[in-house]
């Protein structure tokens, strides 16, 4: 029984990267030249989307969930991806020149940081598998939906009073898939999905940090700091809630889009950003607002700095970035319309400007005084921004910082219109999870500010110290 269920678990989890890997490799441009571990990591993230969207399609077609009903179309799609990837391999762009630091042997500080990362991932696995579902939201929302869909073999909210039927279903469907493959509801084992997501994202975060110009040491420092800037990310990776996947997908979208803004020819980065954005929308209700903000910041940059490029390339941009977003949004929208699952107005009321002071004070306390959750990350951000305020007009610092500020402004606006009367309690209940969504970008900005203030050796080899955001980049390989 024990061995069999473990085999089933491995097969269930393996389907996700198998579903996503061909698409991660077969992105337009030279994503195929990325290290294999990066492509598998990206494939795992894409696999979440592929498998859950196939389950949503089954529900739309009123086909009952079963292992074969989910796995067969997933594997078929993956095969098409493999064929496409093999077919297009001959036409792939030549490999970019590897930077010198990647060929250099790893030094002890880098090895130590890698060891810390391995420890963090191991900790996440141990904490996740140690206990079954125990967090309230994981039990009553995400885990509950997942279990109900598994038992019923369909997306059905019948006899489920008090549930939010308009919530996007990526996480519950992923949970339902694991239960389906296990043949039993085992919430302890199911949670393995989430530490794996953390591991994959850390690999991608390091990769994109290198793409954005950090040296190996600084990229590793940033990645380690992402997991140690308070306990939020690691803790959330053990709970089976939607906030951690949202953080991962939004982090991926943001990093890839910022990397693309440095080199508008890198269509594969734009496609990765689109995939991340589509997954963000498909993960949680507020994902749509996050994506609108991200797209708005990128649009502002293009309009102010690269208007000509925007005018000439907009069809390509719309296709590479917009198509994955539509794939992430439209099926769920259609399903909701067909099943009359309307969005209620539980979150929205009239604007209450009198709350602004309370909101700012409560948010500030949560950000700067909750050392257990956040360490000193927000304080560090503010200090570094003040220290480098003269340089903030440079696009490479301005737009990532703007992304953080715009998201924080969105949170303030959301609290201004929320229906909940106990605003302080409401903020304390939700703000930490909302802040988590922008943690990857925040750590990225901190890394960039340190690059500005620190010695030049922190920069990636081959990068100009004072390059602009639109300067062509050297794509590091073998990272």
């Amino acid at each position: 029984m024990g061995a069999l269920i473990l085999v089933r678990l491995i097969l269930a989890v393996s389907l996700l990267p198998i579903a996503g890997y061909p698409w991660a490799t077969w992105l337009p441009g030279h994503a195929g030249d990325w290290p294999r571990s990066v492509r598998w990591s990206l494939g795992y993230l894409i696999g979440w989307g592929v498998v859950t969207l196939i389950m949503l399609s089954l529900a739309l077609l009123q086909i009952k969930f079963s292992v074969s009903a989910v796995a067969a179309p997933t594997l078929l799609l993956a095969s098409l991806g493999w064929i496409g990837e093999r077919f297009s391999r001959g036409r792939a762009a030549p490999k970019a020149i590897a930077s010198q630091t990647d060929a250099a042997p790893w030094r002890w500080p880098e090895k130590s940081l890698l060891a810390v990362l391995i420890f963090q991932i191991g900790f996440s696995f141990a904490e996740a598998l140690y206990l079954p579902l125990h967090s309230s939201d994981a039990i009553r929302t995400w885990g509950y939906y997942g279990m109900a869909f598994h038992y019923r073999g369909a997306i059905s909210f019948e006899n489920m009073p008090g549930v939010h039927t308009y919530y996007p279903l990526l996480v519950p469907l992923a949970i339902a898939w694991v239960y389906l493959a296990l043949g039993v509801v085992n919430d302890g084992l199911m949670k393995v999905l989430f530490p794996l997501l953390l591991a994959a994202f850390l690999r991608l975060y390091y990769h994109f940090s290198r793409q954005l110009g950090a040296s190996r040491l600084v990229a590793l420092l940033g990645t380690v700091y992402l997991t140690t800037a308070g306990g939020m990310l690691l803790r959330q990776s053990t709970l089976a809630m939607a906030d951690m996947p949202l953080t991962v997908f939004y982090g991926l979208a943001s990093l890839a889009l910022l990397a693309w803004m440095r080199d508008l020819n890198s269509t594969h980065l734009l496609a990765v950003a689109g995939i991340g954005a589509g997954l963000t929308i498909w993960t949680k209700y507020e994902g749509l607002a996050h994506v609108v903000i991200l797209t708005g910041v990128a649009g502002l940059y293009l309009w102010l700095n690269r208007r000509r490029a925007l005018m000439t390339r907009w069809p390509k941009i719309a296709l590479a970035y917009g198509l994955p977003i539509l794939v992430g949004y439209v099926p769920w929208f259609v399903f909701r319309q067909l099943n009359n699952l309307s969005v209620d107005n539980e979150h929205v009321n009239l604007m209450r400007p009198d709350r602004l002071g309370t909101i700012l004070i409560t948010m500030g306390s949560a950000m700067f005084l909750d050392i257990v959750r956040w360490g000193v990350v927000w304080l560090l951000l503010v200090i570094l921004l003040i220290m480098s305020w003269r340089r903030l007009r440079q696009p490479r610092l301005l737009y990532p910082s703007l992304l953080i500020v715009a998201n924080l402004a969105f949170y303030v606006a959301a609290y201004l219109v929320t229906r909940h009367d106990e605003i302080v309690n409401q903020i304390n209940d939700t703000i930490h999870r909302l802040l988590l969504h922008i943690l990857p970008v925040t750590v990225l900005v901190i890394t960039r500010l340190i690059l500005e203030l620190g010695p030049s050796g922190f920069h990636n080899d081959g990068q100009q110290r004072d390059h602009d955001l639109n300067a062509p980049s050297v794509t590091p390989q073998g990272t």
Partner: protein
Amino acid sequence: MLTWWEHLTSSWGYWRQKWLHGRFLVLLACVVALQVLGLLGVQVARLTQIVQTVLSPDYSYALMREQYADMEFVDICQRVLPEETRLLHLIEYDDYVKYHLFPRYNVSLGPQWRKDTLIARDIKQHAVTHVVIWEPGILEQSELLQNEQLFERTDYGKGRWILRVTGSLP
């Protein structure tokens, strides 16, 4: 030739610059490193605790002792629950029972279903074997839990009950 004032301000500017971009950064790095090391230390301690609990000859009760402050509660559970009942839960809300234990019954237990209530599960079958109630009034709120065909009840006084599942539950 600089005047004394120019010399002073120039010197101040130099030191200010150096302090800002040198020593302050080092100070900042020390604070961050301290915070990171503190967090890693806490995690090492937690991981050690997890490993010790998992390797403990009586895993389920090691887990209980870790989670529950009420040792009387732990002792009674240890005496009453069978050894094969391995996995135990602290219930913070009614949701666990409502949504997790009885999803097919569509049961609402009311808002008073709170902490100090345990669900015991057989780790091999992953099936619920016991419900431990440690708060007065909980049992009375639920018709389902009072169903004698599903549960065999043992009264421990002061509103404390242990229910053994005898019927068919998911």
